[in-house]
């Protein structure tokens, strides 16, 4: 290793029962292969968290290899099936963030496949050696490459005349009735914001206060974020929800954050909401205009249009960038991050009492709001919402640094839909996609 050629450092996470034993077999058979791989042994691919891959990249690994038992051969029955699903998504995410996919390797090597292991290590080493060292450290931009910018084409928003006012009246009547009935202690809805053309969450607990509540095109916040929190006043909480907000509730039901009977839902038939003077991008192609879970549904929805989702165009443009451009695109955005965690606070599905970002022993996410810390935070945030994010847009709206977090979330939602035919927030009885598997899940990326 004292030669002039670049000798990459490659971390291999392998399972104890198949690949580790296969690597032993390559040794007993005296098969020769390059000395660049460092094996870290774990009991099962099920234990090999995708975040280990991120950690290795953060620590400067030039390449990462993950290997376990072939499907059907897992010592623990299903660890590799669960792992396969996780890698499917995580790999796409890293790719989208600009990590060269050629540096990540996934394989099934059985205890009998010593030859496969030896060949694999040779190929992995050769590939990474040819790629050269990583062009920048974790969270640092690649020198000499511009950070591309994206522009959006706003879709004009036309509020249907009169419908909001009638709906608002019916909603207030319902809210009054609920509060008067006694079972409901708090109604969470919207009130006029400080500035004209804004709305903000409002908490009312008496019928008299209800008149503060409004309903208009500015009510874009997702009030489901309050659903799983303990109310200050006794009694149930009633939430004013749009159909998209309801999807958060579905997620919360799936994850046992609350029971359906804990909350009353005042469903608002939807006409789309406004963001920065135009139709909110997530509303453009929205097909779900009428609440499905809500107890009463108020009003008639505007029928969905055939408009394309403008954000998909943005995602496509990011995907067309070269990896280094993509990387710099994201570093450009993440460099503004203050680690204020407003995105987390706004998210209706970030319900952990102690976020992984705050776990000090061990440190998953570097604490300082610098390149590495910010990148790791946003990767973990997006990863933890994969298969769960319901695309309410609250995180992006809350971000004071205008980081387009929705792009990352939406991309992963696409991956989940394509790979597992699953959409978050649709069916409370469905198993979340990362807690289940199919034996025939696609695995083209695994060699």
């Amino acid at each position: 290793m004292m030669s002039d050629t670049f000798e990459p450092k490659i971390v291999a996470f392998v399972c104890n029962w198949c690949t580790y034993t296969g690597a032993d077999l390559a040794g007993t058979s005296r098969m020769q292969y390059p000395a660049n791989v460092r094996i870290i042994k774990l009991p099962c691919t099920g234990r090999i968290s995708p975040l280990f891959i991120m950690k290795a990249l953060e620590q400067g690994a030039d390449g990462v290899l993950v290997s376990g038992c072939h499907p059907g051969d897992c010592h623990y029955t299903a660890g590799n099936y669960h792992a396969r699903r996780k890698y499917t998504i995580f790999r796409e995410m890293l790719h989208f963030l600009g990590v060269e996919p050629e540096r990540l390797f996934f394989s099934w090597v059985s205890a009998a496949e010593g030859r496969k292991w030896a060949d694999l290590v040779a190929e992995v080493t050769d590939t990474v050696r040819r790629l050269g060292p990583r062009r920048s450290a974790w969270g640092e931009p690649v020198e000499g490459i511009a950070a591309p910018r994206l522009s959006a084409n706003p879709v004009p928003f036309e509020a249907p005349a009169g419908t909001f006012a009638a709906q608002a009246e019916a909603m207030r009547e319902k809210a009054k009735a609920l509060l008067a009935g006694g079972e409901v202690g708090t109604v969470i809805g919207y009130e006029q914001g400080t500035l004209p053309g804004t709305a903000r969450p409002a908490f009312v607990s008496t019928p008299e206060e209800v008149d503060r509540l409004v309903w208009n095109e500015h009510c874009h916040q997702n009030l489901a974020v309050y659903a799983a929190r303990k109310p200050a006043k006794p009694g149930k909480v009633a939430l004013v929800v749009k159909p998209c907000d309801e999807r958060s509730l579905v997620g919360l039901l799936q994850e046992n954050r609350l029971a359906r009977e804990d909350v009353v839902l005042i469903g608002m038939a939807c006409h789309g909401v406004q963001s920065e003077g135009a139709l909110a991008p997530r509303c453009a192609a929205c097909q779900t205009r009428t609440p499905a879970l809500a107890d009463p549904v108020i009003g008639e929805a505007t029928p969905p249009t055939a408009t394309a989702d403008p954000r998909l165009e943005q995602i496509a443009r990011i995907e067309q960038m070269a990896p280094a451009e993509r990387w710099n695109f994201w570093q450009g955005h993440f460099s503004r991050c203050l680690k204020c965690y407003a995105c987390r606070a706004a998210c209706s599905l970030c319900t952990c009492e102690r976020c992984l970002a705050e776990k000090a022993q061990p440190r998953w996410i570097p604490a300082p709001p610098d390149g590495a810390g910010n990148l790791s935070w946003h990767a973990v945030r997006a990863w933890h919402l994969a298969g769960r994010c319901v695309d309410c847009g609250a995180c992006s709206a809350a971000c004071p640094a205008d980081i387009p977090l929705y792009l990352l979330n939406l991309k992963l939602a696409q991956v989940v839909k394509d790979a597992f035919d699953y959409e978050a927030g649709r069916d409370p009885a469905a198993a979340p996609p990362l807690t289940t598997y199919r034996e025939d899940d696609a695995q083209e990326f695994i060699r």
Partner: protein
Amino acid sequence: MARVGVFICHCGENIARTVDCARVAEYAATLPGVAHAVDYRYMCSDPGQRLIETAIREHGLTGVVVASCSPHMHEVTFRRTVARAGLNPFLCEMANIREQCSWVHEDREAATAKACELVRLMVEKVKWNTALEPIHVPVTRKALVIGGGIAGIQAALDIANGGREVILVEKGPSIGGHMAQLSETFPTLDCSQCIMTPRMVEVKNHPNITLYTYAEVEKVDGYIGNFAVTIRKKARCVDEALCTGCGECQSKCPQGKLKTSVIPNEFDLGLSRRPAIYVPFPQAVPNVPVIDKEHCRYFQDGKCGVCQKVCPAKAVDFTQTDQVVTEQVGAIVVATGYDVMSSGEYGEYGGGRYPDVIDGLQFERLLSASGPTGGEVKRPSDGKVPETVVFIACAGSRDRSHGVPYCSKICCMYTAKHAMLYKHKVHHGQAYVFYMDIRAGGKNYDEFVRRAIEEEGAVYLRGRVSRLYQKDGQLIVKGADTLSGQPVEIAADLVVLATAIQARPGSDALAQMLKVPYDGYGFLSEAHPKLRPVETNSAGVYLAGACQAPKDIPETVAQASAAASKVLGLFSMEQMEREPTVSVVNERTCIGCFDCERVCPFGAIEHREIRDRRGNLLKVVSHVNEGVCAGCGACATTCRSGSIELRGYTDEQVFAQIAAVGV
């Protein structure tokens, strides 16, 4: 501050040839936290091990890294070594510098450098190791066997004869299962009931066996060594203690009059009729009748009650109700057996419309001396002795389109037996067998099939039957013989379909109750197809017989005995020791989303309620049952808040290794 000892093994020349072991030891000594580093020719030899023991004592080591061969080779050895020196065995780690270094690299420089790094990785890991104590689980030394066929009977007798108590639960009114229905068995042609009945009686009389017939397992709680099983004993309406088995009730039951009864006899697969109060067959164990309430006049319209009046022992009790009992057991053997696919499944074979198209089990009853025809082969429609019989193998098996894709394994053999026994009973008759392949692997099996062909004159035709239909009191069978490349048409008096062996309906529900994986057909899955064929992934639950896959009697009995020996092995200790490398939940940060429960293949995640001092429920969190956890770590990976750790492979330990690579 950690005080790690590093021990570099030369393994003779095996490591030392390509790795400069002295230099590795020198390097190791420079690592932070390393208190002692040494190389030696054979670390696993007695003097090598003593060297480690001495160093632990002399240097007050808090952790040990042995750099030598694969841990699969000597991890146990070195853990014992450090334990002898008073150090917790889980504070010892191995760096694999032989199989994964010296043997796969030729360049001495590169290999030595890699060996140094591998040592560094393990030194960093071992600093985070903690002392782990083996988990002790108490064992209730009593077994539950579910299913009273030959598999369950064999397993129960073996366990009972090994001196342990057994509870045998059978769904039907008698034990015996399918084997009691068979006529004679291949390849020896010994009478099935003659070899079966003594076993059944032994079960009944064995002091260590509690027999619950007409009973079903309703609920299984707990884990290996500590199961609580809820069993429903259905109401027989006949007091088992009082009944003498005289049979008076059956013979007087008005529903059972030979000419008028409409109740199909399940034991004869509908080929005969039975009364509403009945013992399924004369050799039944227990020899106590049961009332079929659906057909009993007393239960249907309150009239009759003849059986109660005629019973000399006053054993008939219409007021009896189901009883639910709970039993504590330490191990469970599942022996629920199989069913055959109905012969009505195939539209092209009449779809159940032709009475003279029957399945293999029905033909067994026609052959059996205790069967509806007294052992004379007579066809169901008109009682005529069939002069031409067509046997169709693979009816439903190996048919991914209409049936099941797998091979049912026993049909080749029993079809040859059927052809042979038919010939023994109807000397002038002709048997034709349509088959695709003959699968007769087994002691004296192929010889048996050859005998059917060569000596008993069965005509074997290699091909499937496309369809059959009824005409003029016969069945026109349209098949093919692919060996001669032509279609074949046979006018038969009786057609016997060797229908596919299927899992019992409801086996999936039972599997879920026991947390045993099962395949797409409802067959229960063994833990490993080769090396753990009778265990399941649910610790303490074992499989016997056809509930796992189609099997013949010798295989079933062998597996039942194997399951029994596993149970007896488990019961040889009062306490069971399990590896402590299991998951543990941080109950403070767990929010109870139970995603861990969804990914756990072993059902080891339990719900635990957290209450304040006044008993108010604060939250419900995950809890790992250490007796059940197998230590795969899927839960730890899935937990978003990082509230689950897998002992021995904690995040700290992995991070330390990753960081050590990057240096």
